[in-house]
């Protein structure tokens, strides 16, 4: 049996709308946050969980962490049903909600950690060892005596991660952990997550809108839209599927005629630059490059890297999300 087993998960929320003229009661509207979602995650995997706002990602995380009860469906995490065996289950998981805080606002973060140690009954020796490890990896050493309210957003997120991991959970849920962080903080956080995943074998489920988080960390992604699972598999396969056009910018030593281009690609000129848009599925990049060299003496040539955000936007559009 897999570490996380989710089968036919359903969850609806009832929203009461504004009363219209002539209606006695406020009309109800049912919104399906999750419809028949199933997946499995093995121990030690680092899985990205993406989808537009309101797709049901957070609902899944809340159900998996035992906060929310689904309407129907089966979930088992390491043999436990999260909402039924809540206390035993939450002892083994860590959660980071990127937009909320679990640490106490006015006291040094070290004191918040000490309270979490009591809450999770972490033995003193284990606590010391783990804290040493975490403060080093997350560069928190100098901040331990600083109250949370004086920390920057990046420092705060590192502290939150430390708080969620000090009881050494085997499973970590991250709900938008890099939201609002600067580039350096994002990189530090990603490196840390990779380290935690590789060194300790912590299974990580990462929810994010930042596609760089996903490309940097996850080989497997699940895509959710309107409460349904739309894709589950390798990130590279997903990207290939929606990688329908690519752009090359080239400059030549001499004036060239521009008639030697293969069919089906679009050519634009911008001063000395030739901007060529082509479909890599029809014309392999290698062939494209060969053709370009035949056309004249290439001085400079850049292939624009895949813009993951654009690919994902195209995917959402195509899936009508």
């Amino acid at each position, binding site marked *: 049996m897999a570490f996380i087993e989710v089968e036919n998960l359903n969850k609806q929320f009832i929203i009461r709308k504004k009363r219209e003229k002539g209606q006695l009661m406020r009309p109800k509207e049912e919104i399906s946050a999750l419809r028949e979602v199933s997946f499995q995650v093995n121990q030690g995997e680092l899985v990205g969980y993406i989808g537009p706002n309101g797709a049901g990602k957070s609902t899944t995380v809340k159900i998996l962490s*035992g906060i929310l009860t689904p309407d129907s469906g089966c979930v088992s995490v390491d043999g436990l049903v999260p909402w039924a065996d809540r206390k035993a289950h*939450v002892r083994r998981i860590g959660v980071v909600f990127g937009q*909320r*805080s679990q640490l106490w606002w006015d006291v040094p973060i070290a004191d918040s950690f000490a*309270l979490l140690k*009591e*809450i999770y009954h972490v033995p003193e020796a284990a606590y010391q060892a783990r804290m040493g490890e975490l403060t080093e990896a997350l560069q928190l050493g100098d901040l331990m005596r600083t109250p949370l309210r004086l920390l920057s957003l990046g420092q705060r997120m590192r502290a939150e991660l430390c708080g969620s991991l000090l009881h050494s959970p085997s499973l970590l849920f991250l709900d938008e952990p890099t939201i609002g962080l600067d580039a350096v903080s994002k990189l530090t956080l990603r490196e840390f997550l990779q380290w935690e995943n590789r060194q300790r074998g912590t299974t990580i489920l990462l929810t994010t809108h930042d596609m760089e988080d996903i490309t940097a960390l996850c080989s497997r992604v699940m895509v959710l839209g309107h409460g349904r699972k739309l894709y589950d598999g390798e990130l590279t396969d997903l990207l290939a599927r929606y990688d329908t056009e690519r752009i090359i910018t080239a400059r030549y030593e001499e004036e060239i005629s521009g008639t030697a281009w293969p069919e089906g690609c679009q050519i634009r000129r911008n001063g000395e630059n030739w901007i060529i848009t082509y479909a890599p599925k029809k014309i392999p990049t290698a062939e494209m490059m060969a053709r370009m060299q035949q056309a004249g003496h290439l001085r400079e040539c850049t292939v624009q890297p895949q813009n993951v955000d654009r690919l994902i936007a195209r995917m959402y559009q195509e899936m009508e999300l």
Partner: protein
Amino acid sequence: MMNRMRSFRTYGAIFRMRRRMETQYRGAVLGGVVCQVFFGLVLIAVYRALYTGNPQPMALSAITTYVWLQQAFFRMLLASDPDLMEKIRTGAIAYDLCRPLSLYGYYYARILAQKWMGSLLRALPMILLAILLPPGWGLAAPASWAALGCASAALLMGLCCVSAMENITMAFTMRTLDPRGVQAMMNLLMMTFSGNILPLTLFPDRWQRVITLLPYAQLLDAPIRLYTGEYALEEASRILAIQAGWTVILIGIGAYLWRLNQRRLIIQGG
């Protein structure tokens, strides 16, 4: 057994943390003291005017003592934990829900700490001040040392009782996501039947027979009457038993409501 000891330690740690937070807001303490002293003086001035030429069944010094003790521990009655409300409103409560704790116990420890430390910080300077006021205005000495002891015990029971009441309000807030409706109603009952607006000793005797049995009378009215000697020492065990009874009942109701809540939770926001 080991487990129970350990979780007791956990709730103790939560209590200490929340207690410490309460000592952080010294400006709020000062403001509270000034406000409550003002109210105390106004109320006593009113009673003095009422008593002039109209002898009443209750001695004036007993009334002023009642008023001061009510004002000194006012914070125990009417103060919701703003952090807790904020957590429920913003959804940060999600974090508390994924702790291996009983939610009821977690919030009870927090509420107890807030009410205990919050009222103690305000009560000590106010009691000191009230002792220094001239007779007929200030706080009189307790009926006896034993009365003081019984009153202190009853005050602690009152604290446990009021925390249980507050936790019930919290459970409803979890449902309605806004405390104001429940709170406005509860505050009215609280102010009237705890003796804060008008000492319960001044209510008609027939009313008192019922009112003194309500949970509201267990919070401050019962300890104050033990202090002034209105309740004799022989009655102390009966009073404490009533207080304990209500505390158990209210904790039972609160724990049940929290369990229901946990079954149908909606966390605010993405």
